[in-house]
């Protein structure tokens, strides 16, 4: 579910803005670090969980407004270089601010320990994470499918010229889409922090996975992102149980295997 969340955010950004966002992983990491900092500072995990992703969304807003906005006419190569540069800046800034060593951040008291599910014991926080990520994915889906602005966004993925011809401010749409994508990355990071801990490299690891999800699910294809996120997550969990070392490699191996059979991705048309 976490992967679906990451893929969803990236899918929105790449689908609507048509740029390769290499800073997506860095936004994820910033979300995690912000959560830890805010949670320690005010001593409340829940407030931090609300505040941290909003901070990331604001950061996304600033990035789009100050930089990416000028690059829509430039080629993918320059967009890539820009977001890659941003990713470098953000991850180095994390090291500068929070130090190079990773540390773990524990879940809040009520979510510690396990819960008896009848057939197996399962850590409470993981359960919470699954439910929270699932709810977020559903909420995003509802927003995009059922609200007017969501419909405009989907229209933006299909045909940008038409949307702007209909009198909708496409630049505002781009900004909102980027901020929303950043928000999803940020909250994914914030939710992950208590179980995986924090380290400056976490963004890059997640970036690769998000790309895999989008490549399999299709740009702007929300159901595709969810399905691909689930497939990747399950494959990784299964392999991790038997051969821990290969659990990261398997994500990419699964992707390569699927693409061999279906070069257009799971649901892709383009």
């Amino acid at each position, binding site marked *: 579910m976490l992967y679906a969340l990451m893929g969803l955010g990236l899918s929105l950004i*790449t689908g609507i803005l*048509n*740029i*390769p966002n*290499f800073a997506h992983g860095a936004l994820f990491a910033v979300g995690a670090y912000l959560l830890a900092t805010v949670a320690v500072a005010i001593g409340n995990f829940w407030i931090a969980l609300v505040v941290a992703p909003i901070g990331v969304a604001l950061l996304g807003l600033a990035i789009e407004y100050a*930089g990416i906005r*000028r*690059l829509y006419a*430039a080629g*993918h*190569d*320059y*967009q*890539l*270089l*820009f977001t*890659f*540069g*941003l*990713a*470098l*800046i953000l*991850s*180095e*800034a994390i*090291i*500068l601010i929070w130090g190079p060593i990773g540390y773990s951040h524990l879940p809040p008291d009520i979510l510690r320990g396990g819960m008896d599910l009848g057939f197996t014991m399962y850590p409470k926080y993981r359960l919470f994470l699954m439910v929270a990520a699932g709810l977020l994915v559903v909420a995003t889906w509802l927003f995009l499918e059922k609200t007017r602005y969501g419909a405009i966004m989907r229209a933006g993925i299909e045909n940008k010229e038409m949307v702007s011809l209909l009198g909708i401010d496409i630049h505002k749409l781009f900004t909102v889409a980027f901020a929303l994508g950043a928000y999803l990355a940020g909250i994914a990071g914030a939710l992950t922090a208590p179980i995986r801990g924090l380290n400056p490299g976490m963004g*890059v690891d997640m970036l*690769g996975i998000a*790309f*895999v999800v*989008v*490549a399999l699910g299709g*740009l702007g294809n929300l159901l595709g992102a969810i399905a691909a996120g689930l497939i990747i997550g399950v494959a990784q969990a299964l392999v991790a149980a038997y051969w821990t*070392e*290969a659990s*990261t*490699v398997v994500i*990419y*191996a699964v*992707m*390569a295997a699927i*693409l*061999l059979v279906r*070069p*257009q*991705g799971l649901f*892709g048309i*383009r």
Partner: protein
Amino acid sequence: MKQPIVLLLAAVVLLPFVVRPAIASEIWIFAIFGLGLNLLLGYTGLLSFGQSTFFGSAAYVAGWLLKHYGINTLLALGIGIGVGAASAAVVGYLCVQRSGLYFIMLTFALNQLFYFTAYQWTSVTGGEDGMPGVPRPAMLGIDFKDPLIYYAFVSALFLITLFLMKRIVESPLGKILQAIRENEVRAEAVGYNAPRFKLLAFVIGGAFSGLAGVLYAMLFGIVPLEAISFVFSGNVVFATLIGGSGSLYGPVIGSFVFIWLSESMSTVWARWPLLLGVAFVIVVLFLRGGVVEAWHKVSLRFFK
């Protein structure tokens, strides 16, 4: 077009007197790497963000054989070129079927596949610590341990690469690749199988990346994990773009600027990638078109 060649030869001769021979070698190695990428990026219009896959794989395989089996230098280079071409064939086969953003993301994702394989396979690659102890065996009685002699070897190979690349881009094959870059549909309509030519460009680019990878391993005596990471892929894209993609000498100038920049920054501050990121952003926002184009603009203004 005699002028650039004369300038280049002068640069090759003078460079080791200006910077340390190791850095001078690194510049030309990176230029070989960049020339390989430029065939894809500049001439075929394929933005590959996974070039370090071929660079790193070749460095690991050839380095491992050099270390454990004591193969000679020429064989190591040959194997490196082969590994680079083979890995590029595999990656290219998966990637050329998609285009645009998907293509970029796929090259990156497959780069991650190779990276994590190297990261986890510690018994061979040394994981995060890298694979040290790659020797630099003598060839034909010439001892490559002297950094200056090794520099001469590297720059000779660089000049050969540049010559080959010039021949490739001016050959019918090069013209077909450029036709695909300009208009893929039209190239297909004229009867060229675009995916197959893209794959060919991948393999050739991969072979040059492999050569650069082995030379790099032998230069520093170690294959760092970084050599197969996306950071290297990003660096070579950056170097090619600041030099100006689509021109033969672009990546050469770019790697010159890039290595010089990163070497001088890394001595100043341990967090130098931050400065590098800032440099990326500045180049993209203000200096698009690269050094070659900027130079054209300047020379038009002042020398006309």
